[in-house]
């Protein structure tokens, strides 16, 4: 099959454009003194930092994205920043990551039927222990009063 010259030309131009684009991305701009993972906008950067403290590096040993050297963690830190720059809000980014990696990625588990016991057991323990201690104090006062 003969390919028309115009099509070859079009393909060549597309390839050149693509190469230029890739080239642009590879060449660091003169002002990029900071590592690419730090956002220029301080407020956005602070949001990213807060988010990555709440998210787990899923291949690490209990570290958050904020404190992991793993390549996956670096990728996710980058992904969070891309989404912040694209205008997504924190909840949307979190939801996206949960959809992709499951609840496992949340350092702070959600409050839902699977975690009711997790969130409520310690306060229940506090109340129970407090109640027992109260009853001990009341009984001790009664005894002390009798003496």
């Amino acid at each position, binding site marked *: 099959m003969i390919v028309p010259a115009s099509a070859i030309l079009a393909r060549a131009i597309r390839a050149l454009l693509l190469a230029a684009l890739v080239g642009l991305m590879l060449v660091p701009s003169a002002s990029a003194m900071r590592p690419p993972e730090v956002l220029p906008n301080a407020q956005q950067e602070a949001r990213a930092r807060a988010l990555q403290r*709440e998210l787990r590096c899923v291949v690490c040993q*209990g570290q958050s994205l*904020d404190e992991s050297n793993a390549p996956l963690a670096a990728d996710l830190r980058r992904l969070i920043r891309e989404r912040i720059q694209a205008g997504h809000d924190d909840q949307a980014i979190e939801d996206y990551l949960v959809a992709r990696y499951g609840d496992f990625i949340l350092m702070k588990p959600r409050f839902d039927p699977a975690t009711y016991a997790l969130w409520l057991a310690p306060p229940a323990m506090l109340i129970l222990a407090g109640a027992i*201690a109260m009853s001990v104090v009341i009984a*001790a006062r009664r005894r002390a009063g009798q003496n």
Partner: protein
Amino acid sequence: MSGEIGQLALALALALAFVQALSGLSGARATGERARAIAASAAMGLFVFVGLAFGSLVFAFVTSDFSVLDVEQNSHTLKPLLYKVTGAWGNHEGSMLLWVLVLAIYSAAIALLRRGSERLTSAALGVQGLIAAAFLLFILFTSNPFLRLDPAPFEGAGLNPLLQDPGLAFHPPMLYTGYVGLSATFAYAAAALITGEADGEWARAARPFMLIAWVALTLGITLGSWWAYYVLGWGGYWFWDPVENASLMPWLVATALLHSALATERSGAFRTWTLLLAIGAFSLSLIGTFLVRSGVVTSVHAFANDPERGVFILLLIFLAIGGALSLFAWRAPTLESGAAFHPASRETLLLANNVLLVAAVSVVFVGTIYPILASAMGTRISVGAPYFEILFAPIFVALLVLVPLGPRLSWSKGDLKEALRALWPAGAAALLAALLVLALVFPRTLAGAGAFALAAWLVGASAVDTARRGLRAHVLASALAHAGLGVTLIGIAGTSLWKSEALELLAPGEEVGVGGYSLRFDGVARAIGPNYEANRATIDVMDGNRIIATLHPEKRVYPAEQQEAIETAIRTTGLKDLYVALGDEREGGRWTLRAYVNPCAPLIWFGGGVMALGGIVSLVARLRLRRASAVARREGLVKG
């Protein structure tokens, strides 16, 4: 040869452990005089043979005897001598042997010190013998450090570089002294239940062991946290990692136990509760050992693990906890405490301390265990720092607010108004601290003002206490321990609220500012260590044009282990840390550099040291008191 000696010593130790268990327990009967003598000798023998086994293992590591599998897997000829020695317990098998060695030392101490009645001591030795036998079986059948490798290779696989660190070399022995010290307290509690002598006596007998365990746990946790801070390179010092939690839980319960036992010793109050805490503290030590050694959690600490070992330890936990609790259920109802005290009394404050500490333990316990249970049921969730901080912080704040009241209230019947009046200087100090923080420190945070106020309240109350009651040992002990809490709190608040950080990509000659310092990057040079190669950066800390310090953070490669490790550089003023970690090399000869300024950070560990010092003061005073009373008794005999 050392392998065979070690193996033989372990087998003999196992036999002696059984002898100690049987004779110790039968010595708990009133007529068991001969059994008691045998139990004491068996305890000394156990110590000798476990010591011999441990010595053989250290010898094999120092001489790089790669015909021993454990040495081959965890050592290397080029490793510095210190890490050859500490490498002996930087692995699963060796660390379990260290565990039993510490247990044997405690058993020998129980036999030598003979605190408490003869029957009580004997029963405690019996319980210790049972624990030793169980752990020796565990070592011999699932974790034998003396397995041979034939033919012996010329070189070993090396030790995880993270573990090649002086801080970590002494962290495990310290923690084990704590974990296993709680076994001695547990043994006395079980002995009290067995002999029925469960008034205050056992608590008095067990007190030095309780204190040693608590001091060692405090120091072990402090050391571990400091290690994490300077080794991991992110400036964090506590990660709520399951293995950290495993050491925190026994510490919290041991703290509750130390306080509750005070009341039990004095008047027999809360005696059942104190017994339960002693059982709980050691149970949590065992659970901690299970978490670390079984591999149910992944962590830097779980350097070797397999399910078979997990099942064995789980079985041991069920036997120990189940046995102790059955004994408790059977005997405890006869121990009606019947304490009588007024609501405004030290007893009430001790109860409040216990309620809050138990609640704090339940947070750590549930948060650590829940993900394991959830994954067993097919859902994977993470429980990270935010969960623990939300639940743990309010409980601990409530606890710290109440701490100063305890020492100021008398036993049985105190005067709350009088106590609060006496504490006015501490209250004033708290108010002043809050106002100063709000006025002088930026960014302004209420949490920061609150934390400093609380710290001033604690330290101030300790000062009030020593001023009012005089510089006596038991006053000084509690004052130091309580003030240490305040100091640590300042460290935690300072770093978490006012930390500054910078992450920059730097070419040689470029500068970056962080928290008032200016850092000039002077490039990276190759450096060769004994068993690693490093990229060593030179960073000048500038004040205007003047260089005030030069830091050398490194990035190391350990060829034998084929692992990388970073070496942070920290410049501390004692009140503030400048913390620098070298990242990776990027295009154009630039390097990423992470720098933090952590205000108050050193106080976190300094406070831990102050707390431990309080425990040491109390321990020394106890032992001297005992000697003094022994002398008095002897003189009394002479005169009489």
